[in-house]
Every structure is written in structure tokens, then in C-alpha cells.
């Protein structure tokens, strides 16, 4: 297998041998892969050979190999690196942790790759609505993994979600209509918010609903181990 100039992002890396690294990358066409970057921790004239092999830098990578782990043959920047700081950086790290936890190696996810690149580009803007970006990405990720659910319909009956109805979430069925309006219940979601989300709204108007619903939906697949990046947000 020999692949040339494949768009990719490094999700994570760890040192390997004296001067090499094992990169966990998300590629446009081949999904998540492990790549050995030989000698990438060795210094080079005027810089370090592996300095661009960092998360959040749009890359073009060439790799080859027949085994599970491929060898990085060449890499270059595809466009300017992003200048992520503070909560925007922590958010981007959260996306990476989610993907490392949920994506399998060698499963192509071209739609997710585009969504990820778009989200990073949006996070690069200091004025962006962080939570809207994160929630939209989380929903795309769930759909890509085959765990998506309808936001405007009940999962079991297929009946349309109504503005004044209240809904619960079930991992197998998706949204389920709750008999009585239960304002105090944590796992109850108002139909009006769900309909907004179905229309593509993940921002301020649905902030609390989107956060609770997607966290619940993700939790089914994340298991007991907590998402560590959440510790980085101190006041949100």
C-alpha cells in the first residue's frame, strides 16, 4: 500500500524508540491510522524535523506499508497552522480525545474528516460559539459511527416531535415521548428545542438541551472511563 499526499490531521502522538514517533492520524480517505514517523524527533538545521507533526496542523501525508502500522514517508503542511488558544484549544483537544476513544482504525470517514476540518477552522475564530461547534461535531460523530438518531421524530413510533412535548432519550430507540411534562427531570428534553436542532441549530437557543442530550448519547458509547479533556474547562 502506497498513498501519496493524503489530507490528514495528527490526533495524538507518542515517542517511539530514540528519535521516532507513532502518530495517531485522521486521514480524509482512509480514516484513523497509526503511522510511524521515523527520526521525527531528531533536530534538523533551523528547526525540528517533526515540528509540523502536531495536532491541528492541516497536513498532506504520504505513507506506505503492508502491516497494520504504516510508515510515514513524507509530510508537508496543507495550509497555515491554526492559532488555537485557551478554551478554543481545549475544545479542539476534546474533539481529538473523542475520536481516539470512538473511532476504529482503518474505517474510512470522509464526511467526518470534512466536519472535523470545518470545526477546527471555526474554532480558529476567536469570536466563535464554542458550544455550538462542539455540539454539531458531536452529533456528526454519532451519525458517522452509526449511532445517529432522528431529532424531529420519535424513534419507536416515528411520530413527529411536537413543540410542547417532552422527550427522553433511549440508546436503542432514540427519542421517546414522555407522558407528562417533567420540567425538573434531567433527562427530559423540550420538543421545541429538538425541532430547532433538527433544523441545524446547535447554538445559544438550545444550549442546555443540546449539551445534556449529546452527553447522554455519547456516554452510551464511551463506557466508564471519563473524558479527560473536560477537566480542562474550569468555568464552563
Amino acid at each position, binding site marked *: 500500500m502506497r498513498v501519496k499526499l493524503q489530507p490528514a490531521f495528527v*490526533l*495524538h502522538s*507518542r*515517542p*517511539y*524508540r*530514540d528519535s521516532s514517533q507513532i502518530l495517531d492520524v485522521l486521514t480524509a480517505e482512509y480514516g484513523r491510522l497509526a503511522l510511524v514517523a521515523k527520526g521525527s524527533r531528531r533536530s*534538523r*538545521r*533551523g*528547526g*525540528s524535523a517533526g*515540528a*509540523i507533526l*502536531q*495536532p*491541528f*496542523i492541516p497536513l498532506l501525508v504520504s505513507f506506505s506499508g503492508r502491516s497494520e502500522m504504516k510508515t510515514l514517508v513524507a509530510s508537508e*503542511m496543507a495550509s*497555515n*497552522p491554526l*492559532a488555537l*488558544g*485557551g478554551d478554543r*484549544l*481545549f475544545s479542539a*483537544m*476534546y474533539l*481529538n*480525545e473523542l475520536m*481516539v476513544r470512538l473511532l476504529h482504525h482503518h474505517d474510512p470517514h470522509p464526511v467526518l474528516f470534512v466536519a472535523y476540518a470545518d470545526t477546527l477552522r471555526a474554532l480558529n475564530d476567536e469570536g466563535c460559539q464554542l458550544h455550538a461547534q462542539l455540539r454539531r461535531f458531536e452529533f456528526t460523530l454519532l451519525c458517522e459511527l452509526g449511532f445517529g438518531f432522528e431529532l424531529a421524530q420519535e424513534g419507536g413510533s416515528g411520530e413527529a416531535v411536537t413543540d410542547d412535548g417532552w422527550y427522553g432519550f433511549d440508546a436503542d430507540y432514540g427519542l421517546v415521548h414522555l407522558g407528562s411534562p417533567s420540567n425538573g427531570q434531567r433527562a427530559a428534553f423540550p420538543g421545541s428545542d429538538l425541532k430547532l436542532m433538527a433544523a441545524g441549530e446547535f447554538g445559544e437557543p438550545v444550549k442546555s438541551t443540546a449539551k445534556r442530550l449529546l452527553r447522554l448519547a455519547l456516554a452510551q458509547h464511551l463506557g466508564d472511563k471519563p*473524558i*479527560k*479533556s473536560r*477537566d*480542562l474547562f*474550569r468555568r464552563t
Partner: protein
Amino acid sequence: MNFSPAIEDLIQALRCLPGVGPKSAQRMTLHLLERDRAGADNLAAALLDAVNKVDHCQRCRNFTELDICEICIDPRRDTSIICVVETPADVLAVEMSGSFKGIYYVLMGHLSPIDGIGPEEIGLDRFHRRVVEEGVSEVILATNPTVEGEATAYYLIDLLQGDGVKVSRIAHGVPLGGELEYVDGSTLAHALTGRRQVE
């Protein structure tokens, strides 16, 4: 053919070193036994000695054989300025520059959530308490210009905000003697963001 149990044990033991695979471990073992018995004796004694004597400094977490390390107890050092670094090797690097007269705080790592390392694991809140309790006036963040190093710096900047402490981040960029043409784009971008006005 198998080596004798003692030889096998040594080969296995050497594999705990970073970057040492089975082949290198075997080469090292045979070298020590065949050609350098005195060196092997020395290595064994030094290893045991270091493991028994070296611990973390109670103030800066750097390695030391004392309760509090030589830098922390040196009366000539300015204890109101703390330089935060990731590893003991970084302390050595800053010391070599000879331009820093404050004291250090060694994180022994950086924030890396995917590896399970959050603020608590590298003692960031403990460091914050110390800064407040001891009335530290300046904190210099000298974590690496990697994503993890940057995240660690941002977290500390946020943590220290509002405590009346002056916080600065060391500049990263083009190395001395480096040629722009060979500097990669991300390093150059860093150098441009951290640029200073010429006076």
C-alpha cells in the same frame, strides 16, 4: 538456544529503558558480561544508589538527594520569580543559559488528556496554591511549544488570572543560527505571533 536465567533476566530488565528493544537489550547484556565487567559493577551500584537517594524536591518537584534542592535553598536566588518547566532536563537547559536567577517548578509532564493526564495529575492546583500562599510576584511559563505544552500554559494563565501575579510565556521561534528557509512553517508562525517591537 536459550541464555541462562540470569542473562535472560538482565535482558528483560534492560528493556525498561526507552527505545531499547529485545535486540539492543541482548547486545548490551552480552557486552557488559563479555567485555566490561567493571562497567557492569559500576552500573549496578550507581543505579541502586540513585534509586535509593534521589527523590523529588518538596518545593519544586525537581530531582534531588535533599529534602529541598540546592536551587530552592540557595539564598542568592530570587524566590519571588518561578519558572515553570516540564522536566528536570528543562531546568538544566535554562540553568545553562545562565540568565535566570529565580527558582523553578517542575511539572514532570504536561497536560495530555488522551493519555489520562489532566490538571490534577501534574499538580497544577497545588502549584496555584503555593503561588498565592507565598506571594510569588512573577511566573514564567517555559513549557514546550507543543500542543500539550501550550495547553498547560493556557491552563496556568487562566488559573493565575486575578491573583495579581505577573505571568509571562517564553518566546518560541527561530533558533539562533537557524536559517529562515529551513525553519518549518509552524515554528515561523509561532515566531511571528510572539514578535516584539524593535526599540
